[in-house]
Every structure is written in C-alpha cells, then in structure tokens.
C-alpha cells in the first residue's frame, strides 16, 4: 500500500513536470506572435506599421477565442477508430469543466492541451497578414482571418494531429511544417494572387524594392520566433521526455543556424550583397524546415535540412518576384517553400518505421495544400466580390495607418 503511495507520488511528479513543460511551451509559442508582429512591422513601410500591429494584435485574440468556440473541437473531434477521419465536430465550447486530471490521464491536463493547441491556431493567419500587408483592407482581412483559423486550419489539422486519414496513412509532420506553416503559406499565396502586387513594385524598368522600415524590429522578431520555437517544437513532444525534448532543442537550433549560413552564402553569390533580410529569412526557413522532423533527425541531418532551407530562401524570393507575386515579408518563401521542403525532408532523412514515406509526405503536402489554397482563395474571392479586398490607390500611397486608422505608428519626428 505504501509502495503504491510512493509510485503514485512519483507518477504524479512526472505528470507535474510533463504538464509544466506543455504550459511553458504554450507561453513560448505565445511569444512567437510578438515575433511575427515585430518581424512584419519591421519589413513593411513606415506608413503601414500601425496597421500590421493592429492586425497581429487582433489575430491572436481571434485565434484564441475561435479555438475555444469551435477550433479545438474541430481539430480533435475524436474520430471513430478506423474511420476515414476527414471531418467531424465535437461541439461548441470547451467540454472539460470539473474533475481534475492526473498522471493516469496522460502527460498533461485538458486545459494544457487546449492552451498549447490554441496558441498554434492563430499562427497561420499571422503568416498571411505579413504577405498581404500594405494593401489589404482591415475589416475584410480580419474576417478572413476569423474564418481561416476557425474552420480551415482545424479541419486540415484534424487529418493528422486529430488522428484523421493522413495520420492513418503514415503522414509524418512532427510540429507542423505542413500543418501550420505551409497552411499559412498557401493562404498567403491565395491572398497575394487575388490582391496583386503593391503599387510600384513591378515596373517596366524591373523590380523596385520597397525596403522594410526598420531592421531592428525585424531582427527582434526573428530572434523572438527562434526563442518561441523551442516551445513550438519542444512542446510538440507533448511531454518533458528528456531525451526527445533535448534532441528537439538541438536539431531546432542547428537547423536555424544552418539556415542563416545557407542564406548568407546564397544571397552573397546571387546578389553580391550581405543582405540582413535574407539571413533573417534564412533562420526562419531553417526553423520551418526542421519542424516536420525535429524529433527524428540527427545533428548532421538537421544541419543539412537547415542549410538547404537557407539556400532555398533567396531562390524562392527571386522566383516569387519573377512571378510578380509580391510578398513584403517573404512569408511564402519561408513558410510555404521551406514548409514543403521540411515535410519532404522527413522522407529523405527520417527513418521512423512505416511513417513519413515519400508517398505519405507528398499526399499530405498536396491534400492539405489543395484544401487550404482553395478555402483561402474562395473566401478571399467572395470578400473581394462583396466588400472589396484592396484599399484604393490613394490610401495605399498615403499608407494604411492614416487610411484605415487615422493614426500614425510614429509621432513627433
């Protein structure tokens, strides 16, 4: 009897530690929203800074509330076993109210599960906000963001993390290279196609760069994102398992570092310039790239994955510019291109049994990509046809801060 008491106490202690880590990881994922906000604010023009901060402040609020209202129960609907697991909904609101959780129920409580997942939910919309910045109308964007995080993200998330059909077929995406990052990237792509480029970006004489207004803000953003990624990837272990969490910290950091180096050399060879914006994007590319397999890669694998992600960044930025797809912050290069790369890398480098085969990975990338892109395209299209999506030329020239908010981000200069 006393023995059981000791064992119970020990298991309860493990439960406490596991649960605590999920909560700290949730807080770290939260700070990524500040990272996105400052990164995007730094990469837009001075006249559109307040607007982007406003959107990012609202997105996290919308994300948490809609995830509470319906997202959580759409994403983790409890598919019947052996079901195809395509769509199910467990009802509005949160279901847990009274009984306490303990070690017997897993590694964390219902609330920890909710809050950790909820912090992820808004990420997709945040990625979009950067790509469509400097020209999209405020209220239509917020409407899109609400529908996107409330409906689209949880449905595709359920296919894998909710135990749906992609999970059943062995698709592997540890912390969301596809489920979180590409998803944001696909929606961003739909948005920038329908919006068109910023005025004056693509001219007869070629591409006219529109430099971000503050590199310190952008750098703060990237470091905070890296910091938060310890929670994003580390928390995705879903326990404080010492071996796994510490491996994830190591692979995540090495991939980020290699991403910086890859982007450094590639952008130097391509443009003969030491471009901070590329190195910053390279770090993020490395982070996105390692996310799908952070728990199954060796240090060497993770360095290669990060390096390739970093190399992809200047190539992708140039490619999107050639296609006249104007993305002020490089969100599509970072989250879409490196998200796809990271998901494929699992099939190349990973060796977990019966999971992460090329077929499974490509199926996952395509299925989730197609659903998300279509969802985003249709929603944006309807908004465009009804409320309008883009501010008028004069407002764009004057800036969205004055146009949409009647305020400036900076005063008394």
């Amino acid at each position, binding site marked *: 009897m006393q023995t059981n008491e000791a064992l119970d106490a020990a298991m309860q202690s493990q439960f406490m530690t596991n649960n605590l880590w999920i909560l700290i990881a949730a807080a770290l994922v939260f700070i990524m929203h500040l990272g996105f906000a400052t990164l995007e604010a730094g990469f837009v023009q001075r006249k559109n800074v307040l607007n982007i901060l406003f959107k990012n402040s609202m997105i996290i609020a919308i994300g948490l509330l809609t995830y509470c209202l319906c997202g959580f129960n759409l994403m983790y609907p409890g598919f019947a076993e052996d079901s195809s697991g395509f769509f199910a909904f467990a009802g509005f609101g949160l279901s847990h109210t009274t009984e306490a959780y303990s070690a017997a129920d897993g590694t964390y409580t219902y609330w920890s599960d909710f809050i950790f997942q909820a912090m992820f939910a808004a990420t997709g919309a945040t990625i979009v906000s950067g790509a469509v910045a400097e020209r999209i109308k405020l209220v239509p964007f917020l409407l899109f963001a609400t529908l996107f995080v409330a409906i689209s993200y949880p449905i595709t998330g359920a296919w894998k993390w909710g135990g749906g059909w992609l999970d059943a077929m062995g698709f592997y995406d540890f912390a969301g290279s596809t489920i979180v990052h590409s998803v944001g990237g696909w929606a961003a792509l739909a948005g920038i196609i329908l919006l068109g480029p910023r005025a*004056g970006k693509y001219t007869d004489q070629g591409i006219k760069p529109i430099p971000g207004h503050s590199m310190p803000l952008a750098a703060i953003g990237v470091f905070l994102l890296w910091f938060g990624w310890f929670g994003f990837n580390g928390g995705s272990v879903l326990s404080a398992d010492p071996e796994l969490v510490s491996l994830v910290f190591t692979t995540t950091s090495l991939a980020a570092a290699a991403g910086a180096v890859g982007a450094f050399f590639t952008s130097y060879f391509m443009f003969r310039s030491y471009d901070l914006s590329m190195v910053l994007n390279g770090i993020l590319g490395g982070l996105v790239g390692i996310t799908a397999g952070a728990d199954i890669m060796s240090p060497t694998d993770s360095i290669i994955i990060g390096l390739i992600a970093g190399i992809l960044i200047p190539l992708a930025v140039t490619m999107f510019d050639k296609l006249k797809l104007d993305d002020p912050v490089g969100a599509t290069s970072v989250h879409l291109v490196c998200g796809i790369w990271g998901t494929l890398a699992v099939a190349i480098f990973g060796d977990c049994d019966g999971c992460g085969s090329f077929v499974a990975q490509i199926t996952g990338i395509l299925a989730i990509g197609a659903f998300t892109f279509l969802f985003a395209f249709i929603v944006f299209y309807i908004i465009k046809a009804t409320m309008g999506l883009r501010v008028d030329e*004069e407002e764009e*020239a*004057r800036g969205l801060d*004055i*146009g949409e*908010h*009647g*305020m*400036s981000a900076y005063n008394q200069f």
Partner: protein
Amino acid sequence: MKKIEAIIRVTQFEAVRDALAAIGVQFFTLKEVRGYGLQKGQRLMYRGANHGADFIARLQMDIVAESGMVEGIVKAIESAGKTGKIGDGKIFVFDIETAIRIRTGERNEEAV
C-alpha cells in the same frame, strides 16, 4: 540664374523627377516638408479625441537653372505633378544672384 521651388505631392515625385530628367534636369535638392493649405490633412483620432492634422506631408524640390530653362522646367512640373484635385501644390520662382560649384569654384551658368 533662377531658383525654382516646387512643393508637390509625395505621390507625384517620381513622375516629376522623370519629367525633369526628360528635359535634361538631373540636379536638384529635395526636402520633406509639411504643407498647410487648401487640402486639409486626414481626420486623425487618438484615444477617442480628434486631432485635425491640418497639414500633410509634401516634398519640396529646389532646382537652380539658367533663366532660359525656367519655362520648360515649370511646364514639366506642372504637367507631371498635376492630379487636378485640391492639394497639387505650388511652384515659386526666385531670382538668384550667384551660384557656385564648391568642387571647382565655377560660377553661375557653369555651376549648375
């Protein structure tokens, strides 16, 4: 020698610059200024209180040129800087006594 001060819309700058380049004027000095005039600034709000931003950001171009070129320059600015809506700005022409190029010490016509 004349000095032309043109106060133009921020959004027309590139058109005006190109129009000037087309007639051979590539030298000028640009200033960011605040214009108070017929076109009122945007209604601004902060924490529930209005503050009429009675000014709007404008650019001032200073161009020094031989007297003979003034007419052409003014025309170029007028056509490229015009939107027809209130707030297109003004052009002022001044007489200049001497112009000196610091690098060479050249004076007047040679200096601009």
